[in-house]
């Protein structure tokens, strides 16, 4: 079992024939992802990486029955691509592109919600169900199958966390990089209950960072609904106040959104909080051996 995606999930790629789209679609195919085609306007009818190319998402969905789209289009076209996917009946859009304007995402997210389409990202590494389906840009070889679910705002910390879990002799069910932008799709609040319901997941790692209050909301939800052990790390304990640390989301304004505040809330909810990301693996081993 896993959450959201597995080996049978039919995936299309928007921005299929572009440089990034091509490179990563190739990697996903090599990992075993069931990519059934892609979309690039004016290239419909062609074949790319051995898969059909369509002019529109609607054409792709009608021909292939795809339910998930991986989006690689340039930042200025992300909102359009997301809305097109929602309109065509895609159930989950995984938005990899970095640098989409916030205003665009405001409208695109609303439209997706209205059409019951889930979104992940933007500006994220994507989602991977270990040894079954990789929809994103993460290095696949790290993710060995196992019993730990992972949710992370940061891309490289997703890899770091998964790698440590595997080195400790465990593995991953599904890992989701939710992205660190001000407006994102699925977050801890939606994903934690999915992992709680997944019979194969026995522990959950959540990696957050300074800024916003998603981790505080997660702490509340964990206290009320999550019975599985959770290990958490919050990046940015040493970040100076008011400085922007790469992710648009990681801005501390006033007291809200500090690492300390988030760590305390999670600890109070019974979460095993680690001070350094280097301790994630050990903490997982600890909670799973209890």
């Amino acid at each position, binding site marked *: 079992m896993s959450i959201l995606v597995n080996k049978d999930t039919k995936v299309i790629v928007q921005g299929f024939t572009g440089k990034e789209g091509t490179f990563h679609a190739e990697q996903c195919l090599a990992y075993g992802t069931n990519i059934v085609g892609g979309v690039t306007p004016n290239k419909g009818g062609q074949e790319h990486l051995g898969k059909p190319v369509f002019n529109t998402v609607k054409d792709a969905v009608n021909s292939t029955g795809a339910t998930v789209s991986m989006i690689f289009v340039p930042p*200025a076209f992300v909102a359009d691509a997301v809305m097109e996917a929602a309109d065509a009946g895609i159930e989950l859009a995984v938005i990899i592109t970095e640098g989409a304007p916030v205003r665009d995402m405001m409208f695109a997210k609303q439209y997706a919600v209205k059409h019951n389409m889930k979104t992940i990202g933007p500006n994220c590494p994507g989602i991977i169900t270990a040894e079954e389906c990789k929809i994103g840009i993460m290095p696949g070889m790290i993710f060995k199958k196992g019993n730990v679910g992972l949710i*992370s705002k940061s891309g490289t910390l997703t890899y770091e966390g998964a790698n440590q879990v595997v080195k400790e002799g465990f593995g991953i069910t599904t890992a989701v990089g939710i992205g660190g932008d001000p407006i994102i799709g699925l977050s801890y609040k939606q994903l934690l209950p999915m992992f709680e319901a997944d019979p194969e997941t026995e522990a959950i790692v959540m990696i957050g960072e300074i800024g916003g209050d998603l981790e505080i909301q997660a702490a509340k939800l964990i206290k009320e609904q999550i019975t599985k052990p959770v290990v958490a790390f919050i990046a940015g304990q*040493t970040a100076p106040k008011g400085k922007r640390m790469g992710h648009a989301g990681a801005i501390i304004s006033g007291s809200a959104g500090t690492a300390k505040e988030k760590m305390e809330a999670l600890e109070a909810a019974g979460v095993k909080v680690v001070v350094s990301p280097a301790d994630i693996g050990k903490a997982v081993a600890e909670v799973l051996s209890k």
Partner: protein
Amino acid sequence: MNIHEYQAKQIFAKYGVPTPKGKIAHSVDEAVENAKELGGPIWVVKAQIHAGGRGLGGGVKLAKSLEEVKELADEILGMTLVTHQTGPEGKLVQKVYIEDGADIQDELYLSVVLDRAAEMPIIMASTEGGMDIETVAEKTPEKIIKVQVDPSVGFQGFHGRELVFGLGITDKNEQKNMINFAKKLYTLYMENDAEMIEINPLIKTGAGEFIALDGKMGFDDSALGRHPDIEAMRDLSEEDPDEREASEYGLSYIALDGEIGCMVNGAGLAMGTMDTINYMGGTPANFLDVGGTASAETVAKGFEIILKNENVKAIFVNIFGGIVRCDRIANGILEATKLVDVHVPVIVRLDGTNAPEAAEILKNANIANVISATDLADGAAKAVAAAKGE
């Protein structure tokens, strides 16, 4: 990206948001000229820097004669203004804004920001203008009125009514003026991809008109491409030269005051690396995210920027390759040692995509200062030890 008060007011004026008349000056003579043109009899001389709290820091002063304008402009231009937002080092004032004095009956507060939880803009208003709004939020939160505006419908009448009744505005003419003001502000927030607009104070005149006495604006960097007029307002002298140079190479750099230079891919891992160094008893000298498209050239540039900081006693390169391929980073390190005098120990941890190739490249190069690390904990420990000269 942030802009100056005078630039924000130019945008306000374009949208019909009332502002006092004013002109920007780069010299004392220009300041006096501007004051003459504006006519007086009262002027305000305002330091233009990208930070709040200018008044308290002595950067905003009232002049009652042209002589006073001259004296004040002379005093403020070239001063290093320290406010609670500049840091202790302060900021050099290179421009002053000469503005007409205003007839102030009441001071209010108004801002538009993104409400991340609601995923839409929120207008915040308060009768407590002229004060630090964070203090108001903390001590008297009931005095802040918050109105979310769903962008799919935009600013409606009821949004305006919530604002004016919340602010206790009873005069119908004043209500109309305030609603118009807020509606225009919302429009310009959306149309310009602003991240934040803050007006503190927003004043009410004796005639019941509302005027933006101050104006702060920040913009979504990701959207600047479609706003060349706003991008043209960028004041490079307000930005840290090293941070700016880094950004030209796709690097995200922020100087800190520790001893261990960091070069990491991804903002989260970069912060996590700083946290680990700190946890192990060291101090990070910077935040540096090499981004997703690092090349040998950008890595070499990263070393150059890190090493400009004389406090740096060791460098920790921590890369978990996903999009970034480790062999590129390894080549970058080689390149850097040729281009830059890397005189401190460099601890290198490369994991993920093409890590074995990278290890091979570094091994064959056999550079004296380069120390390999097996994982994050090992790398951080070695960096902390190296910085201590152990």
